[in-house]
């Protein structure tokens, strides 16, 4: 027993509240990494074990660059919080499986050093670091970033183009032919046995991870639902053969939409802080994605649409604030 006569030290007098929830930044980040793992591992199964190397280089270099940056800036080392590792993983998952090994490292450098730490570090970056890294690679090595491998598991799919590429260049009929039939195509898109970036292919595993994060309350369901829904509705309305002739199911599962909507458009640092603001963000990202896919020069637009919406996040936050208790809508 410790009696009350001890008076060796005064007690801790920090400000209230004196109890806290046991959530932490590292818990959130590592949970997101866990949620991404099945889809990432499926990438290795789908494209060969080479991509494991790509993923490891992406994560490892991101952590290394974070460590070096913080060391040089004489800041506290925060590599254990998982945020750099997560950025590296997300970046690598959005790269083609055939990417040369040095490129994920270059992408991580841009993501971590320029997009994150030059902005002030975790919490201050305006743009999603992983997407900035990917965009930089896309501009620097457009060929390497659009060269797709043959899949190791594809039953009779030997195309070396992504479904969105085929759609862009050869049209919807050719796309169906490539997969055999429409149901076959949907199945391939859903399961992930199709060409594309390492971690973006398996709709089902990404949905699983996304639902896990929604269940853990780390992301709001409104964001992916609105973004994917917007893409679905708009691609259906503005179909190739006139109004209401599109294939929403294809567009919702193709490309990087699912991984983007569940894991990038929900990156808390770079999206609005209120749910209402997040819905506006998701709506805008969905519209821009469709615009780029249907009218733009690129086959895929998820990455750029999210980056564009990141840039107006402060503006959304400025105008979409929570409703204050007792304000009755009168002048503030």
């Amino acid at each position, binding site marked *: 027993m410790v009696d009350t006569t001890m008076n060796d030290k005064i007690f801790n007098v920090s*400000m209230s509240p*004196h109890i*806290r929830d046991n959530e932490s930044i590292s818990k959130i980040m590592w949970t997101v990494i866990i949620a991404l793992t099945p889809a990432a591992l499926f990438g290795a199964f789908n494209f060969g074990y080479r991509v494991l190397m790509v993923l490891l280089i992406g994560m490892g270099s991101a952590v290394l660059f974070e460590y070096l940056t913080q060391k040089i800036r004489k800041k506290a080392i925060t590599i254990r919080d998982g945020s750099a590792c997560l950025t590296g993983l997300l970046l690598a998952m959005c790269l083609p499986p055939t990417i040369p090994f040095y490129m994920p490292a270059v992408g991580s450098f841009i993501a971590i050093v320029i997009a994150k730490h030059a902005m002030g570090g975790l919490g201050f970056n305006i743009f999603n670091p992983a997407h900035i890294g990917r965009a930089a690679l896309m501009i620097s090595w457009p060929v390497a970033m659009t060269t797709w491998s043959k899949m190791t598991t594809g039953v009779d799919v030997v195309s070396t183009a992504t479904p969105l590429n085929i759609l862009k260049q050869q049209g919807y009929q050719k796309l169906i032919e490539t997969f055999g039939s429409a149901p076959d195509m949907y199945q391939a898109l859903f399961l992930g046995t199709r060409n594309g970036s390492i971690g973006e292919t398996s709709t089902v595993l990404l949905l699983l991870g996304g639902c896990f994060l929604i269940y853990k309350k780390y992301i709001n369901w409104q964001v992916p639902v609105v973004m994917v829904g917007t893409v679905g509705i708009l691609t259906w309305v503005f179909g190739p053969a006139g109004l209401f002739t599109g294939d929403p199911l294809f567009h919702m599962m193709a490309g990087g939409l699912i991984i983007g909507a569940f894991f990038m458009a929900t990156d808390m640092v770079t999206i609005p802080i209120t749910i209402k603001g997040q819905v506006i963000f998701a709506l805008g990202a969905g519209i821009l994605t469709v615009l780029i896919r249907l009218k733009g020069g690129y086959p895929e637009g998820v990455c750029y649409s999210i980056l564009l919406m990141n840039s107006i996040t402060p503006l959304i936050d400025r105008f979409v604030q929570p409703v204050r*208790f007792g*304000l009755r809508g009168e002048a503030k």
Partner: protein
Amino acid sequence: MIKSFRGGVHPKDSKFYTAGKPIETAPLPEVAVIPMRQHIGAASIPIVKKGDLVKKGQVIGEADGFVSSNVHASISGQVIDVGSHPHPIFGKCEAVVISSDGKDEWLEGLPLTRNWEELEAAQLLKIISDAGIVGMGGATFPTHVKSTVQKDKHVDLLVLNAAECEPYLTADHRMMLEEGPRIVAGVRIAMKVLGVEKCLIGIEDNKKDAIEEMTTAFAGLPVDVVALPTKYPQGAEKMLINAVSGRIIPSGGLPMDVGVVVQNVGTVAAICDAVTRGIPLIQRVTTVSGGSIKAPKNIRVRIGTSFREAIDFCDGFLTRPEKIIMGGPMMGMAEPNIDIPIIKGVSGILAIAKGEANTGKEASCIRCGRCVNACPMGLNPSMLSILSERGLYEEAREDYGLFDCAECGSCVFACPAKRNIVQYVKFSKAQNAAAKLKENRG
């Protein structure tokens, strides 16, 4: 329909330590240190001097103006000092120190027997004022001030705050179980003072027995017990009024703006004592709890007893506490040591063990929005903390409702980055107040 409010958080209520423990009377203090500031408003003026003999219930500090309160001797004995002494909120404060003669003698004529129903509202108010009664939930606003309806206001509802939403605290809970008649009388007197016909009692549904007890006790009276979901800060004035009556206090407003006055369970019990028996506020029920307390208890203790004596009555510490808290863990105040007196607003004495506190290193905001979802006032705590960090105090006030913040701590509880948002808010408020002062002078 479940009545509640938007936002809020669900901390572990930790009431199991003391919820089942009947109130015990703590021994008399050897020496009672009775501060002259135990209420919001002007400090009382001591009217005794060193060497004087005082009796229990005797006025030793007189209210200085309307927004102030009398202070009474809590034990009989000799005044051994009038001067600066440790205080749980102000660090140091003028206090009257009484050395007990062990006799615990009442001032002549106390306690008396009085039929309150024969008294007018004004007379009742005078008794409450003289008895030095203040809000005993912790805010310590003088009760007679709160019960005086301003000319331009109309009050039609009394709300009894029995939510006790702070974790650990069970003093109000036990009083409702054990002292129903005092509470009933206190509520009826408070209603007469205000001239209202209706009272609503808000109790969180983690106190089912108290809900039953109060429903029975108030049967036949125009008083309804409202079961509220267990969610912090259910007992915050604006949230409570909204939950039980649906009324919304406008930003910057007071309960009286929507015709409501809120009283706490301990306060109405004190009103009953003062009016029916002439006993001023010289003791209170408080919860001594937390993982570091060996035998947590609900105790009835004299004002001026030291935290140390109260903790010793609960068999001392089990382990070295991480923090000593006056009040609840969400809004209470951390104390550097335990040689401080229990004052009228001490609703709990907590010794929080390491691990219960769950602190952590503060990081920068990752904009996760948990604080926004938790804030019952609909503010953006993330923004308030960042504006404070950057010195933009005026913007915080003008554009982000700084002064709406009740400092309930829900945002800090929810924050994964462990940001001390309440601290930032308090600082911003102080900076705004200082700027205003300067402006008025300049």
